[in-house]
């Protein structure tokens, strides 16, 4: 620090947000007396254009070289003021924000207290700003490609948008086919478009797009690097079918020795499939996959004389020798579109899902009513004696949602509408059935939702307000025990079929993705976005974005909207071709570092590694920070026993005088 610090202090009224409990003029008078302070001013909105001009003018006229802005949280306007002082020729890191709003005026009621605290905060910031160092912002190249994890509607939409913009996309899907949950749905609310009809073209587009490399039946194994420069390793699981040779004719599945023996995941187990299978007729890619666990040849080593599939495959595509393969590539941004799990109805044992075959989930209902489903769209149940069309149908909402007993306090946001839609579809197929919906509330908030809800009620579907306590069997009937809370009458409602409107839950395997990409969970256990309002598709990891139900339950329109948002955000570094890296990074004092690697272990961004350096002829290991990865969080500094690593702008020598100025220590 060669030049003498000349500090300007700018105190914001924030309308009356600050000035109603802080005497801003008094704070300015106080600040003027602090060492090195040349000027202290107040203004109604410091962040406004005239406010910024005020600062810039002082810098030019009075030669200020350090600026303290006493206003709101640095989360809010630090970038604004950094830019402003930088435009006036002062290093943007010669700025200190004193938060006299969130941490002062908003939490005090007395003017006297608020003013006293604001003075302390300003004094502390002045003490620190004098000791700051000039930092340079650096840029590195960004790889013009993106990784999209999960190829449901969210992942497909994100991938298509990015690919259409001209960037390479790697679309990785865990299961053999793209499509996700939406492919399983019959009709979509409130417009009753056929789900497959609107989704299938997108699935095909995703697979055939010249800019999209689809890696189906694959899983992301490893992600290292940072925004603009992620190194990704993907495991392509063995299908035991040569991807290029398979024509998708299906002869293998027809001839499989264990034909139609295993529950078909796509049909929620209602239909059966062979050990070699295509998940559903419109699957993309239309390539068969052998389920190694159930294939006789792969699990037992023997399948008749020769495996049938191999015998009948005209394309000679069956390859039992196939091994998992690894592909590695580089991307600049990542979109997580891993979706959700439907709530497991077994966790509400009072509803008897495990005990009674005629208690089914909403997802199962989707497959039952679907023309391409296991029953070709016929709603038939077995009542113990014969197969009948159900006459009395009950649908129950909020199963596994808004329910603290299963740990899900949140609303799943789609059940109100999908239950209404299913009631409509049942009415369509069973005109004479008596249909009732048990509900806690009806939340029909989306475009066209309320209208659809009205339409369903007009179709003679009864809404009964009550949360059933139990379902049990009486003869051939199921009895829904419930209190109608509008009339305070207990009911024992005898029905043939119960549909549980199960909610959406975070995926059981989300921990793997969290660890892979260093993501966090919100209290509802879905992935946490960077800011609930202003950065809803970003995450705490730069360059990693969220789309669809991985971030929280949402319907298809919202999912698609978010997927497009995530794609647009992901394209920022790709289009710019450069990423700016944080200048406030940790720095190691190599002379005192003992090379224990605690910081390496503790760094949440894997930004630190041990390197060998020459210390007076001896080779020693010391920590070194990858500035592109470091977020300046300071965890390393807390873990370092010898105080040898500290974040710039937050060094002991900078923050201890700040603390001292608060009067906390000498």
């Amino acid at each position, binding site marked *: 620090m060669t030049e003498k610090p000349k500090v300007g202090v700018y105190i914001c009224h924030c309308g009356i947000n600050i000035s109603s409990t802080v005497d801003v003029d008094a704070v300015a008078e106080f600040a003027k007396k602090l060492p090195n302070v040349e000027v202290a001013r107040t203004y109604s909105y410091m962040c406004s254009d005239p406010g910024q001009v005020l600062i810039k003018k002082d810098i030019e006229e009075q030669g200020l070289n350090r600026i303290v802005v006493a206003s709101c949280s640095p989360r809010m306007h630090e970038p604004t003021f950094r830019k402003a002082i930088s435009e006036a020729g002062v290093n943007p890191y010669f700025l200190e924000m004193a938060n006299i709003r969130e941490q002062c005026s908003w939490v005090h009621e007395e003017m006297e207290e608020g003013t006293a605290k604001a003075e302390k905060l300003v004094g502390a910031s002045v003490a620190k700003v004098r000791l700051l160092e000039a930092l340079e912002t650096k840029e590195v190249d960004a790889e013009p490609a993106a990784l999209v994890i999960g190829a449901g509607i969210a992942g497909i939409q994100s991938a298509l948008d990015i690919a259409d913009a001209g960037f390479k996309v790697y679309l990785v899907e865990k299961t053999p086919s793209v499509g996700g949950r939406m492919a399983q749905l019959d009709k979509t609310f409130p417009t009753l478009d056929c789900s497959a009809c609107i989704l299938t073209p997108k699935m095909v587009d995703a697979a055939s797009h010249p800019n999209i490399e689809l890696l189906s039946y694959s899983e992301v194994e490893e992600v290292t690097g940072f925004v603009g420069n992620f190194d990704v390793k993907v495991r392509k699981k063995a299908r035991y079918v040569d991807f290029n040779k398979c024509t998708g004719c299906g002869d293998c599945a027809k001839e499989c020795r264990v034909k139609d023996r295993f529950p078909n995941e796509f049909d929620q187990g209602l239909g059966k499939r062979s050990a070699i299978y295509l998940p559903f007729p419109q699957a993309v890619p239309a390539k068969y996959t052998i389920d190694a666990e159930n294939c006789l040849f792969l699990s037992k080593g023997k399948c008749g004389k020769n495996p049938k599939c191999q015998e009948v495959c005209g394309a000679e595509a069956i390859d039992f020798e196939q091994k998992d393969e690894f592909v590695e590539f580089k991307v600049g941004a990542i979109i997580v579109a891993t979706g959700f799990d439907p709530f497991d109805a077994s966790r509400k044992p009072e509803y008897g899902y495990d005990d009674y075959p005629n208690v089914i989930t909403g997802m199962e209902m989707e497959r039952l009513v679907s023309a391409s489903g296991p029953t070709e769209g016929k709603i038939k149940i077995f009542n113990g004696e014969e197969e009948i069309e159900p006459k009395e149908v009950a649908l129950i909402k909020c199963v596994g949602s808004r329910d603290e007993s299963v740990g899900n306090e949140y609303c799943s946001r789609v059940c109100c509408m999908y239950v209404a839609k299913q009631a409509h579809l049942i009415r369509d197929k069973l005109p004479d059935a008596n249909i009732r919906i048990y509900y806690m509330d009806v939340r029909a908030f989306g475009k066209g939702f309320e209208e659809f809800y009205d339409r369903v009620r007009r179709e003679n579907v009864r809404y009964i307000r009550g949360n059933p306590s139990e379902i049990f069997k009486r003869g051939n009937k199921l009895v829904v025990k419930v209190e109608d809370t509008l009339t305070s009458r207990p009911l024992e409602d005898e029905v043939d079929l119960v549909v549980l409107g199960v909610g959406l839950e975070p995926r059981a395997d989300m921990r793997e993705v969290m660890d892979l990409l260093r993501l966090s969970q919100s209290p509802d256990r879905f992935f946490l976005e960077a800011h609930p309002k202003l950065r809803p598709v970003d995450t705490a990891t730069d360059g990693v974005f969220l789309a669809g139900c991985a971030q929280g339950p949402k319907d298809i329109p919202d999912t698609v909207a978010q997927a497009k948002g995530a794609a647009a955000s992901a394209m920022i570094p790709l289009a710019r071709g450069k990423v700016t890296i944080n200048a406030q990074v940790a720095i190691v004092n190599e002379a005192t570092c003992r090379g224990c*690697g*605690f910081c*390496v*272990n*503790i760094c949440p961004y894997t930004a630190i590694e041990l390197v060998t350096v020459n210390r007076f002829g*001896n080779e020693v290991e010391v920590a070194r920070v990858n500035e592109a990865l470091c977020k300046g969080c300071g965890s390393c500094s807390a873990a370092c026993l010898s105080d*040898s690593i500290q974040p710039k702008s937050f060094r002991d020598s900078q923050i201890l005088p700040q603390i001292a100025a608060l009067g906390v220590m000498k």
Partner: protein
Amino acid sequence: MKMDLEQLRKTAAEVVSRDDVRYLVGWKQGTYGYRVAPGFIEDAAGAAELIFSPLCTANLATYLTLAEQLPVPRGEEPDDRKVALMVKGCDSRAVVQLLVEKGIERDDVVVIGCPCPGVIDADLLAEKYPETEDLAEMKWDGEDFLLIHGGEETKIARDELLAEKCRLCRYPNPIISDIMLDQEVETWELAEDEGVQEIEGKDVDERADYWAEQFEKCIRCYSCRNVCPLCYCQDCVLDRLNPTWVNRSVNFSENTAFNIARAFHLAGRCIECGECERVCPANIPLGKLNRKLAREVRDKYGFEAGVDPEAEPFQASFKPDDPEDFIL
């Protein structure tokens, strides 16, 4: 326990003669009385000085990191030969913990394991058998100790002299070694940790009073830090002047800051060799402090320092399923 000195010296001579070994650190007889000194043996002849007896209380692992890395003159290569080290069970945990913390590399050290039936507490010994200028020896004799002084042999019951750390020892056999000098000894029934229990029996105010009394005595000689095999930062934060975390005046406040900072720096790292307490000239029961923290770490996180060279360092590891019930 029949530790064969001839065998020990022969092995040591062989090891120190190796081309890839720079020197060997072992125990040798001191200059008077019951004293045992560290021996830095550079050649086969020197190995004849080595001993291993109940008087070998010191943890020599500290010399692995205490050795100064001198600047290498231009044109010369650094001496990267190994250091051979004799370790008891407890000492070996220090070696393991140093490996965990990358304080040393496994290839840098030849570990000579000495299974240990327990060593004596020098203070207890001096109390009962006053210091003498003549050299005295000690041996293990079955369950007991044998004091050899002035041509006289005195049998002393094990319980009479056994060091506190040995009463609580769960690892009498070295955890890692390249050469094991003897058959493993059998572990013994553990004593209750009365020292820690005494602290745990006190309420917060009583604890504060207890430690206030202890820390008042501290003369800040830093012997505890210097002898500790795991206090090996070349530039200790507690020595720094900017910022001055601990002032250099000897008074209760600064003494407390020093002792507490050191205890926290050792949480999940202390291997309970008891050296800090042994060397403390003010007789501050530092073992109680460090063992209490080690116990907390063991109970709350299921982690024990210095038993697994592959472990992640406790202070730098996080498990999503760490218990958090005691944090808030």
